[in-house]
């Protein structure tokens, strides 16, 4: 072969390697999911076949990319699964542990190539030796050879054929109606979303102008554009939607490893894996959910002995579910453990000076303390939790994605943590108000109603502002005071009643404008520490409006004892 084609061959392999990167990690995730499924039901044939297929694809594709060590390693595991598939070897607890070990090793081998990780080659050999022990005495299927160095053209063709074959199988599984898809760089999607965001802003301006000019021809065009923009927006947003199930398998692994480490028996069940959420929301949800699940494993679920003594099944259950509810997605982590220890939390809160010893509060309010920074009731710091970092970080991450965190717990029956999240972080429904010269936006899902603030219905008690709304007393915050806005307030002010974690709190503004499609913009690095403002948006006239962080504003007022809710 001459030099020129040699060059191009290297080029082809290089390109293949780049293309294979994402697929490799997808395959690894699928492998792990199959193995965990197999662990749950060791006799099922479906996960065995799936693991075999995935390994076969990894072997073939790695061979094409000239990742010889990965290819031959995958071959060893594949051989094992082939024998299992044919019923020559039975699946045992040890062999599943071994395959999971091998899948981790595969991941680190790929990390060494794609993600600057390091791989321990000796470990590969050790694992291979263990597999050989499993398969020894059985007939080994087929021979395996991959040329050293750069793959040759026919190998690539062969590999592609193999890949094709392996790929067709899962597609058949999905049925004839399976949709075709293309892979798009996220950067392209992000800029598309940005453009749509700008279009929404310009469209708002167009509607406003058309209305002011009173030209009916222009108005009908503007309405048409409005409809198209709304469709375009919804379609664009739906492109970014991913089923949350992709992250669920990660949690299965967390539960498996941690429960083994702590000597607990826990099963993770999931529901609603198909629920779709914006990609960015899903990405930001991973860590908080891991925290919550770790807490359930460590503090929630009791040891098998304790559970049996309490008349509960030996095996604890953590149920992870996702479902749509109006314009929100509810994600629930429910465990059937011991529940939160009200007395311990109360004592800890009093000790920390967060609560007066004689204070009377509901359980619901008591649970809020576990979200306080540094709050921990764990008597012992374990490797998993108890350091008091955790729930406050979870709360912060959920706030950052405009979500709401709710806790409910029953002694002896378990704890449920519910996350209410918006579908997307790009555009939200907002409620536009004015305060002095500037505009402020309330996230619409938190707004319940608006009432006028008059002398008759408002009063102060012990430095707290209260208002009587149809017989119910609602505390309120004067945003003018909170934000130190200069100038006179109008004679009649408006109170926007919001619902924060199940409590009604009013916020006083000058005037109420109405609903507003809010394209979320970050305030950037310089304003990231500003409290009470979560972002900004652009109005139809080109000016900037600020988005209120209602839960933060309420908790800030609580700290100043202006509002006691």
């Amino acid at each position, binding site marked *: 072969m001459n030099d020129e084609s040699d060059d191009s061959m290297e080029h082809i392999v290089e390109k293949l390697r780049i293309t294979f990167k994402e697929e490799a990690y997808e395959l690894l995730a699928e492998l792990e999911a199959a193995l965990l499924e197999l662990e749950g039901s060791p006799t099922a044939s479906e996960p065995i076949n799936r693991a075999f297929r995935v390994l076969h694809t990894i072997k073939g594709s790695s061979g094409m990319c000239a990742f010889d060590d990965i290819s031959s390693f995958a071959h060893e595991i594949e051989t094992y699964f082939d024998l299992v598939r044919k019923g020559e070897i039975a699946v045992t607890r040890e062999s599943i542990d071994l395959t999971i070990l091998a899948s981790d090793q595969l991941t680190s081998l790929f990390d060494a190539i794609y993600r600057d990780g390091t791989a321990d080659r000796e470990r590969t050999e050790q694992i291979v030796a263990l597999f050989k022990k499993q398969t020894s005495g059985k007939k080994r299927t087929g021979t395996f050879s991959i040329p050293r160095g750069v793959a040759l053209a026919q190998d690539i063709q062969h590999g592609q054929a193999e890949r094709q074959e392996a790929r067709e199988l899962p597609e058949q599984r999905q049925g004839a109606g399976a949709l075709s898809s293309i892979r798009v760089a996220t950067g392209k999607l992000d800029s598309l979303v*940005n453009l749509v*965001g*700008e279009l929404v*802003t310009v469209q708002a301006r167009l509607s406003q102008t058309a209305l002011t000019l009173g030209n009916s021809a222009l108005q009908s065009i503007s309405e048409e554009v409005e409809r198209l923009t709304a469709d375009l927006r919804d379609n664009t947003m739906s492109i970014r939607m991913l089923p949350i199930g992709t992250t669920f398998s990660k949690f299965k692994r967390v539960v498996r490893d941690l429960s083994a480490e702590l000597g607990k028996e826990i099963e993770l069940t999931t529901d609603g894996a198909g629920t779709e959420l914006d990609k960015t929301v899903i990405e930001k949800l991973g860590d908080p959910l891991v925290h919550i699940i770790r807490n359930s494993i460590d503090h929630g679920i009791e040891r098998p002995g304790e559970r049996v003594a309490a008349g509960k099944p030996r095996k604890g259950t953590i149920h992870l579910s996702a479902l749509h509810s109006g314009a929100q997605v509810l994600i629930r982590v429910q465990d059937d453990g011991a529940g939160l220890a009200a007395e311990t939390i109360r004592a800890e809160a009093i000790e920390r000076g967060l609560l007066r010893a004689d204070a009377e509060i509901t359980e619901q309010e008591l649970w809020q303390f576990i979200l306080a920074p540094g709050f921990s009731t764990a008597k012992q710091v374990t490797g998993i939790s108890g350091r008091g970092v955790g729930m406050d970080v979870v709360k912060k991450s959920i706030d950052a994605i405009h979500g709401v965190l709710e806790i409910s717990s029953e002694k002896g029956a378990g704890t449920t943590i519910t996350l209410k999240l918006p579908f997307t972080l790009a555009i939200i429904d907002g409620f536009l108000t004015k305060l002095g010269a*500037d*505009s402020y936006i309330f996230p619409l899902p938190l707004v319940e109603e608006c009432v006028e603030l008059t002398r008759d219905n408002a009063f102060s008690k012990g430095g707290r502002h209260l208002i009587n709304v149809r017989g119910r007393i609602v505390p309120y915050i004067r945003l003018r005071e*909170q*934000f*130190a*806005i200069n100038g006179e307030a109008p004679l009649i002010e408006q109170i926007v009643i919001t619902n924060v974690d199940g409590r009604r709190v009013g916020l006083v503004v000058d005037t109420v404008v109405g609903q507003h499609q809010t394209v979320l*913009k*970050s*305030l*950037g*690095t*310089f*304003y990231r*520490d*500003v*409290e*009470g*403002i979560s972002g*900004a948006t*652009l109005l139809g006239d*080109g*000016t*900037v*409006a*600020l988005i209120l962080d209602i839960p933060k504003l309420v908790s800030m007022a609580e700290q*100043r004892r202006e509002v006691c809710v």
Partner: protein
Amino acid sequence: MAAIMEATQYLTFKLDDEVFALDIGKVREVLDFTSITKVPKTPEFMRGVINLRGSVVPVVDLRLKFGMTRTEQLAHTCIIIVEVAVDGETTVLGALTDSVQEVLDLGPDHIQPAPKIGTRLNTEFIKGMGKQNDHFIIILDIDKVFSIDELALVQAVENKDEERRDP
């Protein structure tokens, strides 16, 4: 402070009667004064945010930042949009100034190191002193001017909170 070795172009602008300069490489564009939305509970020199063709960009009042009186909107008031490196990331930011003067070539021999004393500015902010005719031009190290701000922003807000809580 790294010595300035090569001839560079600078954009000069005025705050009060003093002439300042910025490395032109840091400047993106110059805008007329536009309406600025104040972000509550932030220091006064952080004037707020503006809409720069769909992006939300913070604006800093350089006069206030440097201990002068607040910038009033006059015919020549403008916002210089600069790119600064904050924590290793490039951030776009507006600097409110009284007027923009000109683009100036300054060779290394026309630039002297910043004086240690005799200036009301924090000398950390000064890259050097340029000389044009008989006037001195303060060449700003814009990355430094805005890197320290971050801390200033947080502290200022906390202090305000303290004051308000005390009575």
